[in-house]
């Protein structure tokens, strides 16, 4: 098992003919992801990696069964293409683009909520179920199949931790990067909920960073609803206060969102706290030895 995607997930790639879209499609396909169609307005009738390209989502839907979509569409066209996915009732959408205007992001997430489409992102590296399916830009070499579930805001940090675990022989069930914010479709706690329900996942790793209150909210949820062991690793404790470091989410807002407040909340919720990827390895060993 895995969460959100599996071996049979039939995937549509939005913006498949762009530079990133093309390269990532090639890597995903090679990994075994079942990509059945691509969409780029004006490029209908062409092919990318042997995958048929359509002008419209509706045309792709008319010709293929589609379970999920991943978008490589740049910010100015993101809202329109996401609306097209949602209106056509595709139930899972990964949005990779960063820099979509806030008003557009809010509308995408709200419309998806009304129509029942799950959105991962925006600004998400996507997710990977090692050995089964990769719907995103996670570098395959960093992962192997196993029973650790990882959820991270940052894509890079999920690669970082995946890489270390894999080096120590600890495989992953699914690795999910939800995006850097400040707005999110699926939140950390949504993914943790899925891991809790997933048979394959035995240990859950929560990778967080300073800014916002999402980790605190996840902690509340964990305390009430999660029985599986959780290891948390929060970065940014030494970041200069009041400065935005990349993600707009990574701004210290008053007393909320510091690394300290997040670590405290998660500790209280019963999570193990790691200070670097190697700590995580040690903690997993400890938990499994019990």
């Amino acid at each position, binding site marked *: 098992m895995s969460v959100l995607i599996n071996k049979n997930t039939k995937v549509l790639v939005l913006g498949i003919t762009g530079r990133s879209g093309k390269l*990532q499609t090639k890597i995903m396909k090679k990994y075994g992801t079942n990509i059945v169609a691509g969409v780029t307005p004006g490029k209908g009738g062409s092919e990318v990696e042997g995958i048929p390209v359509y002008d419209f989502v509706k045309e792709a839907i008319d010709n293929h069964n589609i379970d999920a979509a991943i978008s490589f569409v740049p910010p100015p066209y993101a809202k329109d293409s996401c609306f097209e996915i949602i209106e056509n009732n595709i139930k899972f959408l990964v949005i990779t683009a960063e*820099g979509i205007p806030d*008003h557009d992001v809010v509308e995408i997430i709200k419309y998806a909520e009304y129509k029942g489409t799950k959105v991962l992102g925006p600004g998400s590296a996507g997710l990977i179920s090692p050995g089964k399916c990769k719907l995103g830009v996670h570098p395959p070499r960093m992962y192997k199949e196993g029973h650790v579930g990882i959820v991270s805001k940052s894509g*890079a940090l999920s690669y*970082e931790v995946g890489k270390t675990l894999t080096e120590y022989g600890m495989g992953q069930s699914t690795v999910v990067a939800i995006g850097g914010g400040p707005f999110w479709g699926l939140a950390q706690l949504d993914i943790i909920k899925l891991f809790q329900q997933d048979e394959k996942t035995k240990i859950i790793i929560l990778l967080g960073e300073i800014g916002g209150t999402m980790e605190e909210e996840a902690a509340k949820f964990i305390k009430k609803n999660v029985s599986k062991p959780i290891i948390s690793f929060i970065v*940014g404790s030494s970041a200069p206060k009041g400065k935005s*470091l990349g993600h707009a989410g990574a701004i210290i807002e008053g007393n909320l969102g510091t690394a300290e407040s997040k670590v405290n909340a998660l500790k209280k919720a019963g999570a193990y706290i790691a200070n670097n990827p190697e700590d995580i390895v040690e903690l997993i060993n400890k938990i499994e030895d019990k």
Partner: protein
Amino acid sequence: MKLYEFQGKEIFKKYGIPVQSGFLIYANDEVKHFTPPLVLKAQVLVGGRGKAGGIKVWDGSIDVSKIINELFALKIKKEKVNAILALEKVDILREIYISITFNKSRSIHVLIAGTSGGIDIEKTAKLNKEKIHFVEIDPFLGISEYQIRGIAKKINIKSYLEFKKIIMAMYNIFKEYDATLVEINPLAMTPDGLIAIDSKINLDDHSYFRHEELFKKFKKEKKLIQGKGLDISKSRDDTITYVPLSGNIGVISDGAGTGLFTLDLISKFGGTVANYCELGGITNSEAMLKSLKMVTGDSMIKSILVVLIGGFNRMDEMAKGIIKFKKEFNKDIPIFIRMCGTKEEVGKQLMRNANIPVYNSLNDIVEKAVNKAMES
């Protein structure tokens, strides 16, 4: 992009929100013959202006140029005052607080209203939570009448139609300008009705593609006030985040999480960061080259950490950027590179060919970079 008070008030005027009449005074303007009383307000982008003495009332009893010169001599939270907004004085009966922004965790719009406004609003928000009211607004529905009526009742506004007009105008500005914040603090009740005494509007830089002319206009106005040195180094064409700090190690990363973790590691090993560069969405060889140039522009720098773990980001592109920098701009500053992820093999091969060492362990290179910075 944060707008100055006077810029925000121009927009308010256009949307029918009452403001005081007034005019702008630049630092090098000749002081003309003004008529008292006037409120003189330093135009700065940081908060806390009132508490820092950035707002003065001139009642005519002393020479106005004295007050003006005082204001121009101020630095408010490190920001120099280069323009003053002079406004007619109005009688304020009561002050309230109104803003429209995003509720980030719920992905909706939110209207925030306080029964009292003014410079202590942050304190009120903490100590008197019952005085601050939140109304969630569905982005597709907009503000409904019952929501405005609800807020009016809670903060005890009697002149409902006047209030509604202002709220609707604020919401239209919020949507039509792609604003992330539209704030009036205070909105004053005066004998002549409600008047916006201050304005704070933040625009979403990511919406530039929809508002090119507007951004250009505001930027031009800013330049006029701030003079040179406004644009640090960021252009519209790249997505690099550059944060200057005060240590001696330069950091370039291709992902926020790893970047933050690198800062934590530097701190753990006892190092200090000179500046921090994150590539963002566009990650080609040009962006890498540019980042290296930006980071090495700081004369304090003793060593550089380049921390790469590419998903979107391609290591072949990164390698090309680094090699070009080494060839054309090499400044003899030691660079420690961790390179892995997409197109890792190709990237590493290019680096080998160019005789530039790359490492695999983040811990190791951070330790090396900190030691190098300390020994020099």
